[in-house]
């Protein structure tokens, strides 16, 4: 029989809609894990905690897409090119085995050192990147592979060539394709979920977010520059629009929070990968039991329900 302590915890869990918060752990019996999650979400994050998330999400040692790929996927084969114009290194795509099944994976990729950062364009995709992602989404759909999308982008690249090659249209069509896919799709924000550049690859059945990731309509600096005419007011902007995972969950923008190692994902990439892997496995198992038509219907209904009006 459940102890009072457990009943109390379960009660809190229900009130916090926190089945959602348990990405990576299971309700049955794992009290310690429950407690750990609960301790973390007892109260809404303070302005200081929100800013810490901004810093951790951008931490130079934070694991990037390929760090998770090498820890979570077997037989990884990276694919290249949009079959039209270029191979955008800021967005990687490929196939691999996850937990015994073939999956297609797309993910934004930043660089570790100056040379790689330049090569990866600081993780900011051109339209070619989205076209490359769309090619792999179509491939996944054709062969029935679930799609995993790891999101970590400061924003789509704001350059002359990017505009000439159709940045806006590419972002729109990438979302539209995700709304049409017949395979299960999971997106996880693993660092910066920056605006249009992020949502382009995040229209998924389930959207997860790592504990210290951020999800924003505009960067705190950009928001501050427009509203206060001073990019230095970024902390104030972040406090105002609350880009952290807990607030994103409260607003229904994400479905679950993926825990990170104490101190942030960069302190222990292996544990971070393990926790992410557990969440992905649990979510995929759940989605794979849903018929394709129903998946698509629910996916669209979920996004169509977002917003607050009267």
């Amino acid at each position, binding site marked *: 029989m459940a102890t009072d302590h457990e009943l109390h915890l379960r009660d809190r869990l229900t009130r916090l809609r926190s089945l959602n918060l348990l990405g990576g752990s299971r309700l049955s019996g794992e009290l310690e894990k429950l407690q750990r999650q609960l301790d973390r979400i007892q109260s809404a994050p303070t302005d200081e905690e929100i800013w810490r998330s901004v810093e951790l999400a951008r931490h130079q040692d934070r694991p990037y897409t390929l760090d998770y790929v090498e820890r979570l996927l077997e037989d990884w084969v990276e694919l290249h090119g949009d079959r039209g114009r270029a191979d955008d290194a800021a967005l990687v795509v490929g196939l691999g085995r996850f937990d015994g099944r073939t999956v297609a994976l797309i993910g934004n990729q930043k660089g570790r050192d100056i040379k790689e950062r330049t090569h990866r364009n600081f993780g900011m995709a051109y339209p070619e990147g989205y076209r490359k992602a769309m090619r792999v989404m179509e491939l996944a759909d054709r062969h029935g592979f679930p799609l995993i999308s790891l999101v970590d982008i400061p924003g789509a690249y704001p350059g002359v060539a990017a505009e000439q090659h159709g940045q806006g*249209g590419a972002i729109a069509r990438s*979302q539209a394709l995700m709304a049409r896919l017949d395979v299960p799709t999971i997106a996880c924000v693993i660092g910066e979920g920056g605006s249009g550049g992020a949502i382009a690859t995040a229209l998924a059945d389930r959207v997860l977010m790592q504990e210290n990731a951020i999800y924003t309509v505009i960067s705190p600096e950009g928001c501050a520059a427009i509203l206060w005419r001073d990019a230095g007011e970024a902390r104030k902007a972040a406090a105002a629009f609350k880009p952290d995972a807990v607030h994103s969950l409260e607003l229904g923008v994400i479905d679950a929070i993926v825990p990170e190692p104490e101190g942030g994902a960069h302190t222990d990439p292996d544990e971070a990968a393990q926790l992410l892997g557990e969440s992905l496995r649990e979510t995929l198992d759940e989605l794979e039991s849903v018929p394709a038509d129903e998946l698509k219907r629910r996916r669209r209904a979920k996004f169509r329900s977002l917003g607050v009006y009267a």
Partner: protein
Amino acid sequence: MRARSRIASLADAGSFVEEAADLRSEYPLHFFDLRPYTERLAEAEMKTGLGEAMVIGQAAVEGTACALAVMDFSFMGGSMGSVVGEKFSRACDSAAERGVPLVSVTASGGARMQEGILSLMQLPKTVCAVEDLHDSGQALISVMTHPTTAGVLASFASLGDVIVAEPGALLAFTGPRVVQQTTREKLPENFGLAEQNLRFGHIDAIVPRPELKPHLARLLRLFSPDGN
């Protein structure tokens, strides 16, 4: 061009029936910048006489029935928040239910950042609404007017089965000022304008204002099963 004038210039006289006019924003995070968001909304409503940055409804264009979703840049820069997203979404449903095409006319600076991440979510929301419209067999005709940028260009506006623009309209995901500031690149002449977008293959046609109604009427007839 203001939304009401635009509707008057496109819809046959007396044919327009507005829908969802009462929708208003109710943002839960109490966003403050220099002034509270609610104050900005009230001011915009006073100034424009509109409840939001988009007006939707049923109409006929040269006798062909359609749905209309028309944006107004005067209302907070035509920014897309929860209400614009919901109105566009309902316009898609209304068109699907009545079995008619939807014409959108956009004028927008992008997502409404005062609504934080929920404004970004209006991108996938409107995209899903267009997909549902398409699944019902109906078309979206997108008219991009000055300016159609950022979140609106990166969502429903770019998903038109046919996309037409007004001469000289700025159609860009990132506008020239921000591109210049961020990249310090030298901007080509006419950067991001409709004429450049046509040249690079992003839109189907540039149609001057006096020709817009007959152009749309022809398109609407082509998408209507019996041609009228």
